[in-house]
């Protein structure tokens, strides 16, 4: 029998229904695991054990009384610490916001609570979701459960580390330049940046208004669809929220990829940012697997990663400066160095730079849309390298920007990263699938077919 901490949300729901596991038993087991492992991983900034146990008891009573709320009822979830949970601090992993108690739940937390999910606590992030693995902040950085000497990616670093280590089956992350998909890639889990506007950002500390997304992070594709089903939906109070009825994201998970057309963006990892050989080889394997499953895979071209990255950075830094200018002027020493360095460029960008980036953004969106008229899903790299050692700041600085995630923050298309193998050093490597607007379901369908064919999700980090 699978140990409780490795059960997926779907398996947990089945176990609850069969009365072979209860919410109190599961949360008790997870709290014990967190007590043992989290001092080595630093996934949590704030564990809310009492509230989690109280929620577990409530879920247990409701389920026992025959009042199940759905598939996430009694399922634990971790929350990145830029998302408001009423009564808990939202610190953004920064000295700037220590003591910032959230007055209300973010909309995504409201939705999770309505579904009966159990909030376990607040998770490590890169400072304000933009710094990097840092040792000059009020809380230590999260570590990679596959090798604690290596970083777990970020900025949703605690979310990635905690899901991969079996501290909780589900987590929420946020993604402005790849921050759900980077830890998903580094930690060997599934991370989806949904279509822009599909998930409300109300109650989430902003980094860049036109690039920010909230996304699900899970160990399986089916769980990712379940979590997206719970958090998606129009929010009239979020100006970026889309008035869409898209839902039931897991409805196509069993359909396979036969006759789907997949565009393989090889130049991202072959020419633009040549990938580590093991990453490149794994991507070729992904293409072979999908072809063997019946998909048509063709090589296609998009604008270069250099250009996408430039657009992302100008927009991100300009919008972030408007949020952080007051603190950067008055309290620059209260930021860690990485966040300070990544936020300050906005002070030197002109209005012309920003509008020019937004004008070019229209063109690159049109280029991606053009390809997605011919292809159902795009296949490309996520990270170009396995994660670097945390004590090697130069290698981390070299490899962190070597990624192909920012294009889809610029365009807003749904993009999912998942494990595509293990490096010889025992670290996950990854692949990214990208879909049409509000067709997140087809992205998940392709990911599910790949997951079934390869079984990489069954690999577990050597952490106990």
């Amino acid at each position, binding site marked *: 029998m699978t140990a409780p901490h490795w059960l997926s949300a779907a398996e947990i729901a089945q176990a609850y229904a069969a009365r072979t596991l209860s919410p109190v038993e599961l949360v008790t087991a997870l709290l014990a695991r967190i007590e043992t492992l989290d001092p080595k991983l630093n996934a949590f900034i704030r564990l809310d054990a009492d509230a989690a146990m109280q929620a577990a008891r409530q879920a247990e009573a409701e389920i026992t009384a025959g009042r199940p709320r759905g598939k996430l009822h009694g399922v634990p979830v971790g929350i990145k610490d830029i998302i408001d949970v009423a009564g808990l601090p939202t610190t953004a992993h920064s000295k700037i916001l220590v003591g910032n108690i959230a007055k209300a739940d973010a909309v995504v937390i409201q939705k999770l609570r309505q579904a009966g999910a159990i909030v376990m606590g607040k998770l490590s992030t890169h400072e304000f979701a933009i710094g990097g693995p840092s040792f000059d902040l009020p809380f230590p950085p999260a570590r990679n459960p596959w090798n604690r000497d290596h970083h777990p990616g970020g900025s949703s670093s605690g979310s990635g580390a905690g899901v991969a280590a079996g501290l909780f089956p589900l987590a929420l992350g946020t993604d402005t330049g790849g921050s759900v998909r980077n830890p998903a890639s580094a930690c060997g889990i599934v991370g989806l940046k949904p279509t822009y506007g599909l998930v409300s950002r109300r109650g989430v500390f902003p980094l860049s208004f036109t690039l920010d997304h909230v996304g699900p992070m899970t160990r399986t594709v089916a769980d990712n669809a379940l979590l997206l089903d719970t958090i998606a939906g129009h929010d009239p109070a979020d100006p970026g929220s889309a008035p869409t009825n898209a839902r039931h994201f897991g409805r196509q998970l069993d359909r396979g990829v036969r006759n789907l057309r997949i565009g393989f963006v090889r130049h991202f990892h072959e020419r633009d940012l040549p990938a580590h050989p093991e990453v490149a080889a794994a991507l070729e394997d992904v293409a072979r697997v999908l072809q063997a499953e019946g998909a048509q895979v063709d090589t296609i071209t998009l604008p270069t990663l250099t250009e996408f990255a*430039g657009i992302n950075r100008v927009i991100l830094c300009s919008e972030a400066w408007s949020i952080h200018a007051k603190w950067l002027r008055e309290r620059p020493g209260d930021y860690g160095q990485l966040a300070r360095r990544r936020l300050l460029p906005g*002070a030197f960008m002109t209005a012309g730079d920003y509008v020019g980036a937004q004008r070019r953004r229209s063109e690159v969106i049109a280029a991606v849309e053009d390809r997605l008229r011919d292809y159902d899903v795009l296949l490309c790299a996520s990270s170009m390298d396995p994660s670097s050692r945390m004590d090697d700041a130069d290698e981390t600085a070299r490899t962190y920007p070597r990624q192909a995630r920012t294009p889809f923050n610029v365009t807003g298309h749904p993009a999912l990263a998942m494990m595509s193998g293990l490096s010889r050093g025992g670290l996950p490597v990854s692949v990214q699938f990208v879909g049409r607007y509000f067709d997140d379901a087809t992205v998940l369908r392709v990911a599910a077919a790949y997951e079934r064919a390869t079984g990489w999700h069954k690999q577990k980090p050597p952490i106990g």
Partner: protein
Amino acid sequence: MDPIIIALARAAGLDKALAAFPEDVEAAAKQALNNAGAIQVPTDPAAEPWPPMRAGSGL
């Protein structure tokens, strides 16, 4: 440090950062220049920015 960077930093109100973290300010200014220079701004004068202005929606 380039006096233009110093002048721009002061104009942005970054006197404290300039005094305490001059290397961060200088690196940020250079990064801003590099990022903006990597973008091929449209030559068509009518090319509009994204997201477009949509009157009467969103609020």
